[in-house]
């Protein structure tokens, strides 16, 4: 091995050792960086504010649209219960319970009473509550009594009578009734 080669080898070893020494340096500073912590804190507060503001606007929008009401806010004061018993119509007014729901009692032709609880969870896309029951003859299967319930928001107009179909209560979300 000539002198030049030996010098190259020494340089090589020296450079590698220096790189290794540099790579093995540990962090001697604090475990936290106050500037980043402050940045994160600021962002968290900002996100919270955004969420709160979004929540307020959503709440306002919900009230304006007369939409779903959850969390104890009462939207409907009274309910109009429109009954259709074998083609004979009658309308009854029912006061809403403090939680915004209403328990509607329907006298059945054959005796007894059917009860149906309606509330904000029954709000349809148009902001009105619709629910209904159908009393069927157990022998023939024919509908003997049809009850349609529609909610009237405070100050709202009386909704048109729209009889419910038997499967309107599926999934707890009544579908738009078929036009007459």
């Amino acid at each position: 091995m000539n002198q030049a080669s030996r010098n190259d080898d020494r340089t090589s070893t020296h450079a590698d050792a220096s790189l290794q020494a540099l790579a093995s340096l540990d962090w001697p500073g604090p475990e936290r960086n106050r500037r980043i912590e402050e940045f994160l804190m600021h962002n968290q507060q900002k996100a919270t504010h955004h969420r709160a503001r979004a929540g307020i606007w959503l709440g306002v929008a919900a009230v304006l649209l007369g939409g779903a009401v959850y969390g104890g806010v009462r939207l409907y004061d009274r309910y109009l219960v429109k009954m259709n018993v074998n083609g004979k119509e009658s309308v009854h007014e029912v006061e809403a319970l403090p939680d915004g729901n209403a328990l509607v009692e329907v006298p059945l032709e054959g005796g007894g009473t059917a009860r149906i609880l309606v509330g904000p969870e029954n709000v349809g896309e148009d902001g009105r509550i619709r629910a209904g029951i159908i009393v069927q003859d157990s022998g023939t299967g024919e509908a003997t009594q049809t009850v349609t319930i529609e909610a009237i928001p405070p100050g709202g107009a009386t909704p048109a009578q729209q009889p419910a179909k038997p499967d309107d209560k599926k999934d707890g979300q009544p579908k738009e009734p078929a036009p007459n």
Partner: protein
Amino acid sequence: MSVQASMVGDVFDLTSGDAHDAQLVARASDDPRAFEQIYRRHYRMVAAYLYRRTGDTHAAEDLAAETFPPAMKSVRSMHARGVPARLWLLRTATNAASRWSRTAARRARRETARARPDESRDHRSDRNEELEAVRAAIERLPERFKAVLCLNTLAGLSTSETATALGVREGTVKSRAARAREMIRRSLGQTTGGAR
């Protein structure tokens, strides 16, 4: 909400690695607290890497502060591209350190011209001459070689991780790393040769 956060925190402590980071990154788009977890997991690693690059704790802290906030802002890109947070942070830190070294070099030249050259280095935490010589040699490297050498050697990333962080092929990483080491050797050889 706070109950949920503390529960999540407990779960996080039981897991580790890039897969866990990926979950945090996915959440961090909407929840700054998830990014806080990323910060706490990786701050030391990033700061140590920047310290190796700069030899200065204050500079490393400053550069870390330039690394995490942009990473947080680009967390959606991080999530979309599927690059592990650790690699993303080191890549960002590499860029920040390179910018710093260029500025530091300009500042050093200005201060040298004022005939009081040692004053600019008074705040240095690590004044080991040998390490300073290696750092100087690294900073003289062309950027593409410097990035590979720093991530591969100083940050301790594997060849494939370095390739992922830089968006190049592993073969490119290997050849650039070898070339960078060769340039360092020559640079140090000339430095020591010149000094003797």
